[in-house]
Structure formats: structure tokens, C-alpha cells
């Protein structure tokens, strides 16, 4: 048994060497044959890498937003077909005083925060940055929204409730205003007033929803309320509510619905005039979108691979024809059918695999360029590399089987005759 296994292993090795020699001997033909597989693997793995990267960014963004946080807003994230757009437009926006009611009257809410935002110029000495997104947030913002501070601290309870002139800068904004200086403790000018920088957010990068703190600044909502009417529609006010541990989103939504209807004194027959948005609604939508993009990737790349597979099958038939005499001699000198089968199958798989690896290298190069030029977190994952390699091997096996099988079944007399 061991003797047979050793012999088989040796024969496979010999087959591989024959295959390798043939590939090296026909370089141009090899390159041309590989192109189809290369393009196919490049297309599929590129799409998958893009989808994976986007998906990961979106999930990270959702995680940052809080995947169990419910947003009380005027507009829903997914539209109900029973309502017209103007019915949504006529709804009132959430108001700051409603936050207090929500906090006081709901039993399921652990923390809730109000947020309104506008755009203003921020100045430090002679440096200024135009149109910075300024978000006014209530005290518990740090409990419902996940973020890290690069330096400094979050607002104290006093700063939040008293509306002190304190500001936390986004990382990029801080870099622009204070290129060579530590901004903590320094004052920037906003709304014509000095605001003391008490913290700088950690660099977050571009999130899936563009919801990064990097270019923005955050001040207490009571501070913002001194300059603008934060309840106004144009400032996009909304309330974020996070449930106690063990409370499901459905329970939280039930609770919030009842409380909000009560706050707004809606009669039982009236429709809700607010929307309760969950981040899970976003992920569901994206799941469908990504499924479609993935399918498109398979279809586009699949056709390329199909063409590549036909190319390999074609070239393998040519190779078998060219090497008919060699097959005959090999058989006459003792080569068994499976030796010939392995030889050509190995060649087909090797061809396909080289094509796939070149495709993966192109994707790798592409991702490196995208990451360096656009600073986007774009990665060729190990699972996608494995997928590319596996697809290549399978295509090689499928495309190479018929030519290899026909070679292995060749009559040695006929094969040898082609030498004479």
C-alpha cells in the first residue's frame, strides 16, 4: 500500500514537472491564455473587495452611531408608501423640550441626547475654516454616540446645562486651525464669541454615511441655543435614545411611540407625526444592495472567467494534439493513464492558477493605490484571496478535464504513429 502511494506521489510529481516544462516552453501562449482568467478574477475579487470594504465601513459607522439607538426624527429613513411626502414635510421637528419629556417619562431609555447642527466659520487668530459643521449636543451625547477623544475631555454637566462656551474639535479641523500647537485650553472664535477648546476627537476617517467628526465641531446644545433656534427645522434637530441593557429595540420603540404621542397629544386615530428610525433599517437596505452588487460581480467576472476557461480548454486541446507523440512514447515507456491525466490536468490548473494570482496581484496593486491616493480603508481580505485561488483552481480543473481525459485515453499505437 505504502509502495503504491509512494509510486503515485512520484508519478504526480513527474506529471507536474512535465506540465511545468510545457508552460515555460510556451510563454507567449501561456500569457495569452491567462488573460481571460486574470481579468475574471480581477473583476470578481475587485467587486468583492469593494463590497467588503464598504460593508465594513458602513457597519463600523452604524456601530459608531450605536446599533441599538433609536432616532426620533421628522423624516423616516425608509418611506411608507401610504403617506405622501408633503405629509412628512408638515410634521414638526423634535424639540429640545421633548428630550426632557422623553428622559422623564420613558422607562426603557437609559440615555437620550438631542442634536441640532448648522454651518459656521471657525477662527483661531489669523487662521479660519469656513462652513464648519457645528453640532449642538445635549449632555448625554457621549453615552449614545460612540466616539473617542484624541486629547482633552467631554463636556462637564455644568458646561452642558449652563451653555458654557466650550468646544470639542474634530481631528482634521484641529489640525487645520492648530497645525503646530496643542489646541486644548485655547480659544477659537465661533458666532463672534470665544469658545474654549476642551477636547479633540480621535481621527475617525470617512464613515459609510459621511458621519465623521473629523471636519466638524461639537458644542453644548444650550450654547448653540444662544445663537440659533435649535428647534427649527433647518437645523435638522433629532433625539437619540438608547435602551437599558436587556431592552429590545422593539420594546424601546413601543415605549417611545407612546411617550411621543402623549407629548404631542395625538388622538388615538391620528397617525404618528414623528419617525422612529433604527440603524438596523439601514443595514437591511444595505444588505440587499450589497447582495445585488455581489451578484453583479459574479455575473461580470463569471463571464470573463467562462471565456478564460474556454481559452484554457482550447489551449489544452492544442497542447494535447501537439504532444500526441510524447503521450504515445510516455505510454509505451510505462506511463499509466492517470499519469497522463494528471500531467495535463496539472498544466490546466497551473495555467488557471497563475492567471488568478496575476488577477489578485492586480487587485492588490489597485487597493494599494486607492488606499494611498484616496485614503479610503480598502482591503484585499484573506477570504477574498482564498476565493480567487479556489475559483482559479476549479476553473482549471473543469476546463482542463476533457482535454486531459482525452489525452489519457489515447491509444498508444495511434499516438506513437504520429511520430513516425
Amino acid at each position, binding site marked *: 500500500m505504502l*509502495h503504491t502511494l*509512494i*509510486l503515485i506521489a*512520484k*508519478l504526480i510529481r*513527474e506529471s507536474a514537472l*512535465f506540465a511545468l*516544462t*510545457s508552460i515555460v*516552453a510556451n510563454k507567449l501562449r501561456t500569457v495569452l491564455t491567462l488573460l481571460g482568467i486574470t481579468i475574471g478574477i480581477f473583476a470578481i475579487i475587485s467587486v468583492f473587495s469593494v463590497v467588503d470594504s464598504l460593508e465594513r465601513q458602513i457597519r463600523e459607522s452604524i456601530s459608531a452611531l450605536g446599533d441599538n439607538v433609536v432616532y426620533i426624527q421628522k423624516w423616516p429613513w425608509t418611506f411608507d408608501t401610504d403617506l405622501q411626502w408633503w405629509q412628512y414635510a408638515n410634521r414638526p421637528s423634535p424639540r429640545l423640550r421633548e428630550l426632557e419629556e422623553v428622559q422623564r417619562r420613558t422607562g426603557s431609555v437609559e440615555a437620550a441626547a438631542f442634536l441640532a447642527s448648522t454651518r459656521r466659520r471657525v477662527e483661531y487668530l489669523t487662521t479660519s475654516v469656513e462652513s464648519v459643521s457645528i453640532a449642538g449636543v445635549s449632555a448625554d451625547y457621549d453615552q449614545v454616540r460612540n466616539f473617542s477623544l484624541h486629547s482633552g475631555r467631554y463636556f462637564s454637566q455644568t458646561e452642558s446645562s449652563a451653555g458654557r462656551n466650550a468646544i470639542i474639535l474634530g481631528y482634521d479641523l484641529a489640525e487645520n486651525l492648530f497645525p503646530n500647537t496643542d489646541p486644548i485650553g485655547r480659544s477659537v472664535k465661533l458666532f463672534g464669541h470665544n469658545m474654549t477648546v476642551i477636547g479633540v476627537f480621535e481621527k475617525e476617517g470617512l464613515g459609510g454615511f459621511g458621519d465623521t467628526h473629523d471636519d466638524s465641531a461639537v458644542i453644548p446644545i444650550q450654547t448653540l441655543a444662544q445663537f440659533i433656534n435649535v428647534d427649527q427645522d433647518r437645523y435638522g434637530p433629532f433625539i437619540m435614545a438608547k435602551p437599558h441593557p436587556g431592552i429590545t429595540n422593539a420594546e424601546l420603540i413601543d415605549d417611545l411611540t407612546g411617550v411621543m404621542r402623549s407629548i404631542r397629544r395625538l388622538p388615538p386615530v391620528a397617525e404618528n407625526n414623528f419617525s422612529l428610525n433604527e440603524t438596523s433599517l439601514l443595514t437591511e437596505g444595505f444588505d440587499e444592495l450589497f447582495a445585488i452588487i455581489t451578484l453583479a460581480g459574479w455575473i461580470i467576472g463569471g463571464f470573463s472567467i467562462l471565456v478564460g476557461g474556454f481559452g484554457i480548454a482550447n489551449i489544452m486541446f492544442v497542447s494535447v494534439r501537439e504532444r500526441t*507523440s*510524447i503521450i504515445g*512514447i*510516455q505510454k*509505451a*515507456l*510505462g*506511463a*499509466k493513464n492517470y*499519469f497522463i491525466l494528471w500531467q495535463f490536468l496539472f498544466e490546466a490548473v497551473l495555467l488557471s492558477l497563475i492567471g488568478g494570482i496575476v488577477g489578485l496581484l492586480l487587485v492588490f496593486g489597485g487597493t494599494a493605490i486607492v488606499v494611498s491616493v484616496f485614503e479610503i480603508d480598502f482591503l484585499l481580505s484573506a477570504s477574498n484571496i482564498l476565493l480567487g485561488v479556489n475559483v482559479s483552481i476549479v476553473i482549471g480543473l473543469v476546463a482542463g478535464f476533457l482535454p486531459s481525459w482525452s489525452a489519457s485515453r489515447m491509444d*498508444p*499505437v495511434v499516438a*506513437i504513429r504520429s*511520430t*513516425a
Partner: protein
Amino acid sequence: MIRVENVWKSFDEQPVLKDISLTFERGKTNLIIGKSGSGKTVLMKCLVGLLEADRGRIVYGDLDFSAMGYRQRRVIRKELGMLFQGAALFDSMSVTDNVMFPLSMFTTMSRKEKEMRAAFCLERVNLHGADHLQPSELSGGMKKRVAIARAISISPKYLFCDEPNSGLDPPTAILIDKLISEITEEFNITTVVNTHDMNSVMEIGDKVVYIYLGELWWVGSRHEILHTGNKELNDFVYATELMRTLKK
């Protein structure tokens, strides 16, 4: 020793071999001669199992080759060395790798052992130092010698040579013939050579078999072939002006 007993072979109901019976003796160079289309190549292919005889038996030693299945025949195949017309080396492989090929197919020898065996065989055919060369770097005579080294690499009991000196100049052809004859005696092999070259016949023909229109027409030695009164054989032997002049 190989015994051929009443072998018949036909293609499309046209008989190519008709009731052939003869013996190829061990340690001797046995030559099958005949005109093109006489059936000598078909006989050779029947002997090595590349074609199946319609009737009759081929017996290797005590083993009835004709009655054996594929797996059983593999035992005998391991003892067959084959020298193809035109050398038929693998162009993509070095001389050593060519010689080692049958060893890879039939044995579990390590690479080192195979290399040693290949070196011995190449030495024996006077090709010492050519082990690393590619077939494209060899002359016609050297290719034939590599092919002989490959054929004897598995220490065959039987050696089949199909037109071993075709395409070679006369001095080189004689060298190849002599090499085959020497190896036959040295390793006590049953050698069967398929040829139509009278130089080969006169040089190494221990036993000469003349096939005419698919029939065994004459059997004898190289010493007897010039003095037979057989008309068909004489037509073959004295087909050239040189032979006719020599006869006179």
C-alpha cells in the same frame, strides 16, 4: 526467450500477419527484415502488446503474454526496453531526465538512485558527460545512444528496436548496431530489431527473420542469408547495386 506461436493479425479483414511461428533467442540479436508493408512493424507491435494478435500466442519465457490482462502485462512491460525509430526523446527534458523516465514510471527509486542508474547507462553507451545536455544539443547518433541508455535503464530482459539506425550515416549506423549487439550479449537480453538495412543484417544478425507478404518466409543467420536460394529473399538482399556487385 520469446516464442511466437501461430500469430494472425488482420486489418479490415485484410490479413497482415499469417500464421507466424518463431522463436527469438536470449542473448542474441534477432532481426526482423522485410520490405515496407510486409508486416514486420505489425509483428513488432504485437510482440510488445501495442497491438493484439487475432489468433495465436506470444510467450515471454514461461508467461503467456497473449492471455494476460492489462495489470498482469505490466509485470512483463517492466522488463521491456524500447528503442523507437527517430530516438523519440522528450525534448523538454535533459539527457539524464530522459534516461530516468522509465525508472520513474516503473520503480520507486529515489532521485539519487535514478541519477546513478542513468549515469551508468549513459557511461555504457559512451555518453559520459552529456547528462546535462538537452536533446536539441545532440547529434543524431548521440540521440540514438541516449535512447538506448533509456531503453536499458530498467535492466530489461527484452529489448525492442524499431529501425534503430534510420537517418544515420553508415559509420554511425554501424556504431549503433554494434552497441545494441554488445549490450545484448553483455546483459544477456533477448533483442528484437526491426530493420530493412542490410548493413545491420550483416553486422549484428545472430538470427534473421524474413517476413514476406505477412508470412514467415525465411529464418537463418547473417552468414547463411547470402547463400540462400530463396528468390524473394535474394530480391530483398541483392536489391542494391552494391550487393549485386559484391555477389559477383
